């Protein structure tokens, strides 16, 4: 992966004939694609098609198995990145309120912004002083979304962010993410069932091939 290189200032990610996979095996190939600020992309595909592998490649955790990938330095060094990962690494070893949890997410962003933490928690509708460990699966998922949003990132990478969420919670999180997009962030979101109300770019992975469908109206989801 090339970091920054000759990437235009307005691009966050550029893939040219990118192939992704693990352990030398290519899952999908032929991705030529750019990600600009204020765009929203759904990444769709069946289980095991390579959606998470693509995200891991974009995030620098896996090397491309082919082609060329260039990312903005804010993405490469993580300072401009907000992530919701599928797996929660945290062990329940220390007391942790929702505010603590979201606040820890600011580590590495170079900011200590209590206002951003409170705003993000409010946006997803959680009680800030409640113990993170006492939250349900859906509430923890909302806390993860809040944590990514609190960083006010240039690129939001969301891997199944609406898992365990009911309809109201999904709508609330979508609205919070959309507000961040309108503020300039690009959103890459893996989801099995993208909400129909959102008009975005779509990146499909099927039978080892990427298909890119640009947003209908430019940057507006």
């Amino acid at each position, binding site marked *: 992966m090339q970091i920054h290189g000759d990437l235009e200032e307005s691009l966050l990610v550029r893939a040219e004939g990118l192939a992704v996979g693990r352990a030398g095996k290519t899952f999908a190939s032929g991705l030529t694609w750019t990600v600009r600020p204020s765009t929203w992309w759904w990444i769709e595909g069946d289980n095991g098609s390579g959606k998470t592998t693509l995200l891991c490649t974009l*995030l620098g*955790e896996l090397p491309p198995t082919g082609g060329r990938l260039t990312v903005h330095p804010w993405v490469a*060094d*993580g*300072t401009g*990145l*907000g*992530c919701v*990962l599928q797996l929660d*690494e*945290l*062990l*329940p*070893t*220390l*007391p*942790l*309120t929702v505010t*603590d949890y979201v*606040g*820890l*997410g*600011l*580590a*590495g*962003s*170079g900011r200590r912004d209590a206002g951003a933490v409170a705003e993000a928690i409010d946006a997803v509708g959680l009680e800030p002083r409640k*113990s993170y*460990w*006492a939250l349900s699966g859906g509430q923890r998922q909302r806390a993860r979304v809040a944590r990514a949003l609190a*960083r006010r990132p240039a690129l939001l990478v969301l891997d199944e962010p609406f898992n365990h969420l009911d309809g109201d919670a999904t709508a609330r999180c979508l609205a919070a993410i959309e507000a961040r997009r309108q503020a300039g962030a690009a959103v890459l979101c893996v989801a099995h069932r993208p909400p129909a109300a959102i008009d975005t770019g779509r990146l499909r992975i099927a039978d080892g091939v990427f298909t890119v469908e640009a947003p209908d109206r430019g940057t507006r989801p």
Partner: protein
Amino acid sequence: MDWFTQGWDLFGASYVVGWALALALPLAGIPVVAREQALLGTGLVQMGAVGFAAAIAFGLGTPAAWAFIAIACATVLAQRPPARERPEAVAAWMILSGGALTVLLLSGNAVGLEKLARLASSSVLGAGWGSASVAIAAALVVLAAGVVLGRRILVAAWEPRLAKLQGVRPGVIGVVSSVLLAALLAISLELSGALLTTALLVVPALAARRFARRLATVPWIAVLIAELAVTLGFAIGWSADLPPGQVAVALLGGAMVAAWVWPPSWRA
């Protein structure tokens, strides 16, 4: 207060060493406890004892420096365990192998074995003001690292994948925190022995996490527990003519039992 008013001239420097270590070690123990690696903390101290024993056995000079090297090597092993091995297996290996090696290195060396016995027990009494200065400096460095890097150190230990993605640079933070921890443990081993060092590293943080409701209060409660135990250790040791280090460790054990009785409010 006789222990303080009458004992200060004799043991003032030892009191300062105890209080400084009771500030530094519990703070350093919080990331260890966050990863559920209290056993590893014990293993690191044991590997420090191997460094001490090797320095004495081979006449290598300052034992604390060799303890530092041994602990630093052990932290590297702990952070990069053999493929598909769990941290507690590495910790158990450190405790068992280290325990055997320390004695084997000094077998046939009566003076060395006596020094080893003093290291294994806790002999916080007898420190001079030079040692007190070292302990205060170590405590201030740990405190400063906690203020400046505490959140990054905790995230790097608790959520290494997310930390790496979000610019925390867990590799760099891991090296910095490992060097600090190795230096602190080596200094504490030299000044207070293995028992008190291990107890102050893991027990206050383990107890504090059950009493605290928020993450931010864990360091305060851990340090409070440690300072109370050490201070009462000195007071009871003076009045009952008991070794204060062992009294402090026994009190920390009691604090742990009290913490078990106290249900953590933050668990679901």
